[in-house]
């Protein structure tokens, strides 16, 4: 079962779909690492240690990918042969772009005013927006297999992730 050719879902015995049980992911990740981690092979010969390192590296990569909804969705699309980075319709709907600009302006304003609560509020708003898109992905990816629609949602999510990380960076700078 565990070999380097398994996909990330198989590695953790999870169904290959967007909606996964995160507790199960955590548990199975820890269980797998308990078996394959190099520290378990500290006194073992080199071939063992090498293989253990490869498996543990793969487990970490798989866990990181599945844990985050955006990377999980992108990975699923990739399995289905859709590259959400390079699909031809990179243009975003106008209203989404407007929303982006609005957020960017809010960040700039709050940053100038050193208004951390405003930034925290924007974090909540963007979080809600991200959750809505994730809810859409449950439908488009798991139920209807509308892959191109899913790819657009993933691109939007990436945008939002970027905005959220910029907000956090700004807060950190203001708090220092």
């Amino acid at each position: 079962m565990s070999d380097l050719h398994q996909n990330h879902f198989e590695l953790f015995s999870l169904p290959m779909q967007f909606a996964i049980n995160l507790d199960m992911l955590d548990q199975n990740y820890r269980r797998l690492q308990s078996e394959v981690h190099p520290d378990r092979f500290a006194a073992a010969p080199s071939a063992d240690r090498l293989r253990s390192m490869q498996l543990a590296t793969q487990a970490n990569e798989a866990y990181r990918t599945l844990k985050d909804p955006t990377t999980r969705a992108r990975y699923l699309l990739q399995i289905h042969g859709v590259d959400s980075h390079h699909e031809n319709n990179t243009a975003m709907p106008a209203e989404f772009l407007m929303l982006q600009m609005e957020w960017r302006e809010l960040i700039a304003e709050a940053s100038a005013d050193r208004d951390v609560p405003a930034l925290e509020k924007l974090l909540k708003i963007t979080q809600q927006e991200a959750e809505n898109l994730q809810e859409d992905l449950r439908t488009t990816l798991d139920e209807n297999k509308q892959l191109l629609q899913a790819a657009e949602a993933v691109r939007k999510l990436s945008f939002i992730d970027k905005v959220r990380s910029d907000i956090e960076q700004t807060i950190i700078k203001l708090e220092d």
Partner: protein
Amino acid sequence: MALLQIAEPGMSAAPHQHRLAIGIDLGTTNSLVATVRSGMSTVLHDEQGHALLPSVVRYLPDGTVEVGHQAQAQQSQDPRNTIISAKRFMGRGLHDVPDLVHLPYQFIDAPGMVQVSTRAGIKSPVEISAEILKTLKMRAEKALGVYEGRGELAGAVITVPAYFDEAQRQATKDAARLAGLTVLRLLNEPTAAAVAYGLDNAAEGTYVIYDLGGGTFDISILRLSKGVFEVLATNGNSALGGDDFDRRIFCWVLEQAKLQPITAEDTRLLLTKVREAKEWLTDHASAQITSILSNGEVVDLTLTSATLTQLIQQLVAKTLSPTRKALRDAGLSMEDIKGVVMVGGATRMPQIRQAVAEFFQQEPLTNLDPDKVVALGAAIQANVLAGNRNDNDLLLLDVIPLSLGLETMGGLVEKVIPRNSTLPVARAQDFTTFKDGQTAMSIHVVQGERELVSDCRSLARFELRGIPPMAAGAARIRVTFQVDADGLLSVSAREQTSGVETNITVKPSYGLSEDEIFNMLQSSFTSAEDDKQARALRETQVDAERLLEAISAALTKDGEALLNPQERAAIEAEMETLRTLSTGNDSHAIHSAVEALNLATETFAARRMDTSVKQAFAGKNLNSLKI
């Protein structure tokens, strides 16, 4: 290989032999050594019954070296030759060391790392730290009965601040080698503390370790679950600690007493008085700072707790900023934190405890000795890494503290592995050529969070040559970073169309070269070449025995199920060869036979690994795992 100890709890390669291993907390102010005995982690004491060894090294006029309490007692009389807090200078250049002017040493700017001129010559922080490690090693060897033939020391886990960068880590490793210690792993101090705390309290959930030592501050957030310790995020400041609090108070004393520039001896004297006052204020409302300086001037001041709070306010705040960052990196809020464990002598200060309690909206956990907990945890991990199975089935999943990246056009950093990635980790990034016909590419590996290369630490440079001439942008160069469980980074670069490849194991330019280490070892040890060879042979023979024993056990258990008769015969033939050779005294031949046997058992090892992973999920199938 062939032995999979994983599937056989309670069994190690050499079942009856407990391998001696120690954990060392190499602290800025104090150092300790601990070991696991009869399943319990215990701090080892010196002959006078002291657990703490002051991290103080004094070079005496007669050429001898004193370490610890004796050296500490002389620090005011002989400040230039008595080095304290050497840890602050590990892997640091002159420009990195803050508040140099207040230190009584004669610093020398050397490439890579600052050095100190003493009467015993110029000493690097690595050599000074090695003296401390040597003292602890001897203490451990005595306590463990190494001199009475109760086995050799297999190795040590040495703790470092989580926020130490590669240069500082490499310097620590160099010091250990210089002290004659085999380093099993450098372990992050807060992680070590979490292990000791978690196992002791059977803690489950998400915990924060707030570790304020003599010279460094670390914050780590860990998730504890059934013996698995998962570091979620770490942050800190490798130049902030109890020493800085002392210095703040020291400056206040200079100001209040309106002192003119004072001598090195007086500086050391006042710093000692200041530290005593700070420690007194842990349980008292005010402290007296009284001293007579060498010129007869008298200092007599009262420091109240309230004044102290004011003086150190900014420093305390400086610890909260990394704390906020770590929480954000882990994606956690206050409600997720089950407990805050206080580590490091400086966390005894009520001002610190109060600030932490206010920040986390809960009383911090102070029910363990903040001085000892790091060494205790290190000993537990040393025991695991020496191959002694433990009932706790402890597993540490640690992270890299600082991002690793490459220099790109314009002196910018492209991060390849972000900080807080769980080890081991591998990540690849594609790059391309900038000019038409470009046949070589220079690869510059850096560490740090900043955007500009000049603000990060340079770790290594190497070149990929022999790229076939192509139009700019046509070559596809994939650079892969791999960091293993020990935190060791290797970088490889490969041009995808031609397959031209190069790689490097990164050793920071700050570390000592092999030659330097060799020379230092030569000058500090007198052990004869013959001894070394005999020892090497013995070690090779022991390795061979362990391997044979382990493969025999594996064959008995799984040989039937996983190997066909030919495969088994091939392995047994290699075993026979090794068995014969290992009775002789040609260590090279034994070594080659070990390698050959390892190679012959690779497939068997892989199959056993797969089986054991399967067993981990035995009884689970996709249906039962559905949400």
